[in-house]
């Protein structure tokens, strides 16, 4: 299988690079430099806190934008541009193609995040804070961000299999935002009096991916420890949900007529 998905993944990564997607790193660098230089003047005593907050939030936000905007075009762009026609004549199954595209974008996101992590470390060192043991929570926070991005990418890919880029963007964003407020939805349902509303809220709560689980930015900023059980749980959750989405995407895409 990797004989076919591998080349597709590498090619997807190459496309991102040639589309100058990685230039967002320049923008990120500017933000971090600005923050590192200014933070001492604005918020004395909490330099680490601010830099970590800003850095992690930026990594999350930039990654999100990339995951959605490239993700929704993963399949639809190839259909639109008819590049898929000659590729599918090769001995590659449709689901192998999907997994390859997904892996390629995930690779792009991981490398992008890796560079950003270096930038964050550099900014921390600049404000005079040496990297200490509690900083492992920053690494874990970044790992969680990557897990969330993997989920968002899978969502975008799923929609890309059957709807236009614009609609896919809307759907993916809508589910992402719902996922952030998942806990609030559940709380709202618990408070409601109607059992129908209660049940509906519960169902939505369990169906929608809970992105709140992956947000440990505050804990990392305060240097708190993050329990290993959470790391294991989140990894498993993301893996299950991503697999689910890839399966659904494969099912839809494998029976679809290409124009």
């Amino acid at each position: 299988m990797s004989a076919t998905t591998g080349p597709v993944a590498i090619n997807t990564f190459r496309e991102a690079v040639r589309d100058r997607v990685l230039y967002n790193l320049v923008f990120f660098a500017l933000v971090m430099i600005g923050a590192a230089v200014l933070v001492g003047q604005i918020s004395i005593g909490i330099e680490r806190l601010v830099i970590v907050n800003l850095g992690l939030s930026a990594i999350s936000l930039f990654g999100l934008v990339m995951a959605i905007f490239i993700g929704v075009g993963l399949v639809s762009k190839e259909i639109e541009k008819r590049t898929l026609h000659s590729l599918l004549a090769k001995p590659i199954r449709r689901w192998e193609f999907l997994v390859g595209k997904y892996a390629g974008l995930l690779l792009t996101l991981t490398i992008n995040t890796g560079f950003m992590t270096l930038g964050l470390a550099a900014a921390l060192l600049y404000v005079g804070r040496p990297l200490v043991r509690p900083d492992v929570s920053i690494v874990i926070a970044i790992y969680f961000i990557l897990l969330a991005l993997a989920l968002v990418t899978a969502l975008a890919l799923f929609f890309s299999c059957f709807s236009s880029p614009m609609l896919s963007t809307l759907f993916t964003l809508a589910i992402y935002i719902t996922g952030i407020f998942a806990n609030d939805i559940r709380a709202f349902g618990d408070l409601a009096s109607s059992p129908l509303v209660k049940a509906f809220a519960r169902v939505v709560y369990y169906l929608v991916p809970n992105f709140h689980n992956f947000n440990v930015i505050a804990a990392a900023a305060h240097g708190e420890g993050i329990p290993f059980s959470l790391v294991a749980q989140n990894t498993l959750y993301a893996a299950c949900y991503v697999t689910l989405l890839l399966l659904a995407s494969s099912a839809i895409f494998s029976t679809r007529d290409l124009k």
Partner: protein
Amino acid sequence: MSTPAIEIIGLTKDYAVGFWRKRMRRSLDSLTLQVEEGEIFGFLGPNGAGKTTTLKLLMGLIFPTAGTARIRGCSIDDVRMHQDIGYLPEQPYFYDYLTARELLDYYARFSNYGALERRERVGRFLDLVGLASAGDVQLRKYSKGMLQRAGIAQAILHDPKVIFLDEPMSGLDPVGRREVRDIIVDLKKQGRTVFFSTHILSDAEMLCDRVAVLSGGKLQGVGAPADIVSIEVHAMEILFEERGKHPLPNELKEKATTIGGRYRVEVAEAELYPALAQLESCNARILSISPVRPTLEDYFLRLVGREETIAPQVEVNSR
């Protein structure tokens, strides 16, 4: 009897049309045909006849409503079927951020070649289609003709046994078309099967062992080009020009078409010698005498004309 290279049985494709997707339009109606190994097979038909639909069905880009097909004995449902085939889509688009070399290398990875052999192949086929000098230019800078050549290269790079070409000559200048014709002939020499669709009938006549004619989604006829078109000679064509002081006989002149100083006239076979005598008497210079045979084009036009008077589209009620 060896396995046919391509075997199509009752292949049918309906599309749902209309705002509510209720009506069905049958774009391919129960196509059945066989292509033997080593043949150059032409797939002819006017636009909208269903040629591209057929090819897309065979490639697995769209799925049949009914019917099956096998290529070298392997069903089109089976992904392994794709290992030994090559495909050039109509108006191909490729990843425009890649160079031709990178594109061929990418596609070559789906066959099991080592890195060295892959590189050698890519170079060889770039050469073959005349893209050696432009091999490292991004495809987005390619002209249509260059894209076509790149498309042909990726279709045959892995030495497939059966090659499917959808309008392979499109976008090429006469030199390019000649080169593609040569490639196709060469492929046959190597024992491969070539299945190509076109609406350039002269190419089909020149290259194909057999042709199939498709119109309105239905197969109208299959056979060698010569079989489809009758060999009977109906008329003779004379090309001549005026020479000397004697004017041409009026009746001939009226029947003739003229370009520049040259005249062309068609006469019934029985009238040939009398016409020649007339021209001899005016001392006209005879440029050529050749039989007028109905071409594939005539057959084609008759076919399409007849189809259009019967029914513009075949509509099938939804089930």
